């Protein structure tokens, strides 16, 4: 078992800050891509998240008639919270905020929280479009979640542990991403899906007038949009110990390596936006159950064979 020091609780304040910085970088990347497509300059591109934040924080929020405010607020505020909770179990080199012995399952539980949050974000405003979008997200979730669970199991089996630090240190020499490509691929795909982003942006898409965002304005909207980038950033962070050898690497320290790797994964996730047509849940469900699920089960067998 590798030595990992659990940080004192007051370091916890740094977790949201770090994650927010990472998410801001991610949002800037996505913003830059959109701006480039629209023909704007690079300066505009990089500042898109800031101008958008400024705009939304000044905007008043409008609540539709007979909205379920309580559940709506849970959904809107829950996204950033879940993202932070996802990230706290990630070891940064030899230190970790919460050294959970079941970090892999914890991550899984937090991604399941997103089922509830996206649906509630659709339910809350009492509007047809957002409710349909919330339902549609659950349809997608049913398709990606089981393959994701098996994809998460593969590294855990190979490392003989559910602890993320153990999983990271089990990859001395060869990263799990290299010899578990199916699991890694399904992980990336699911990360995009549970963030409702890129080709899986089913909960907030223009074909349903913005979906769960159809009635969301002001600070609520900011929380949902920022929460989405935070979730992407958290998923990128978790990928590092799971598949990319944790903080291992030459010259730079483990903390730096973890962040660098996370940034690369984040770039992959963020830049998936707009590159491909939407993968519709009604089409994807069959792929998830009939192609990805068997593939990840086979991957798990390979992982078990390679580990023993």
């Amino acid at each position, binding site marked *: 078992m590798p030595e990992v020091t659990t940080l004192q609780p007051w370091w916890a304040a740094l977790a949201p800050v770090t994650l927010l910085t990472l998410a801001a970088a991610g949002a800037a990347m996505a913003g830059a891509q959109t701006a480039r497509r629209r023909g704007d300059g690079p300066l505009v591109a990089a500042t898109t998240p800031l101008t958008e934040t400024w705009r939304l924080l000044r905007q008043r929020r409008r609540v539709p008639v007979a909205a*379920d405010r*309580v559940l709506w607020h849970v959904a809107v505020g829950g996204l950033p919270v879940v993202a932070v909770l996802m990230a706290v179990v990630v070891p940064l080199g030899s230190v970790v905020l919460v050294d959970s*012995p079941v970090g892999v399952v914890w991550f899984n539980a937090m991604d399941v929280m997103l089922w509830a949050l996206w649906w509630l974000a659709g339910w809350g405003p009492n509007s047809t479009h957002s409710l349909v979008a919330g339902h549609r997200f*659950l349809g997608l979730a049913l398709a990606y979640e089981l393959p994701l669970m098996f994809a998460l199991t593969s590294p855990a089996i190979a490392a003989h542990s559910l602890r993320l630090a153990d999983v990271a240190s089990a990859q001395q020499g060869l990263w799990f991403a290299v010899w578990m490509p199916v699991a890694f691929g399904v992980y990336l795909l699911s990360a995009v899906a549970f963030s409702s982003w890129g080709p899986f942006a089913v909960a907030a898409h223009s074909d349903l007038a913005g979906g769960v965002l159809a009635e969301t304005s002001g600070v609520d909207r900011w929380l949902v949009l920022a929460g989405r980038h935070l979730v992407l950033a958290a998923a990128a962070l978790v990928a590092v110990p799971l598949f990319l050898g944790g903080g291992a690497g030459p010259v730079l320290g483990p903390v730096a390596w973890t962040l660098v790797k996370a940034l690369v994964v984040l770039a992959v996730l963020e830049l998936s936006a707009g590159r491909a047509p939407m993968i519709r849940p009604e089409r994807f469900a069959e792929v998830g159950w009939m192609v990805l699920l068997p593939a990840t089960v086979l991957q798990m067998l390979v992982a078990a064979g390679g580990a023993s």
Partner: protein
Amino acid sequence: MIGTIVFWVAALVAVAAGVEVFRTDSMARASYALAASFVAVGVMLLAFELDYLGVIVILMMVMEMAIMALFMIMLMGMNPALMPMSMVHGKRTATVVAAVVFVGLAAAALLIPWPDRAGAPAADLTRSLGDAVMGSKMLVMLTVSPVLFATIIGALVLGHPRDRYQRYGDDLERDHPDDPIQGGVGR
């Protein structure tokens, strides 16, 4: 200290959310109140160092309630604009029975001299659970798995509105099923 406070806050949330399940008029709120109750119990299990089981309870129950909320709305048909309605029968009997059961159980809990702890928990409880499931208690898991599998099949058979003859034709002659919306693999 912090652990104890968290525990009792969770206990309070668990019971309060449980009561809210039956007090609220909203199907969505009822489902998610139940989810909150389960999450609180999951947190309490974490206090007993049952990390794996605690997290699994949270994971499964949030997932289940996300789907349950759909069933609630599907079968009870409410939108967020709710009308208060009472869907209760035999309220008095239920109240009496529940009260008696509570008093009985609570009295038992407080009055019975519970034995002291025998043995100490393993150093790595998750690993010990895994060893038990894959070792001495393997038979239990071998029994549970087919039960779960049978449940999946049974529930699908009962719940699915279309059978394969409706999809593939009377003699199962179609290459692609006749579904309202075609699936991504074409099966």
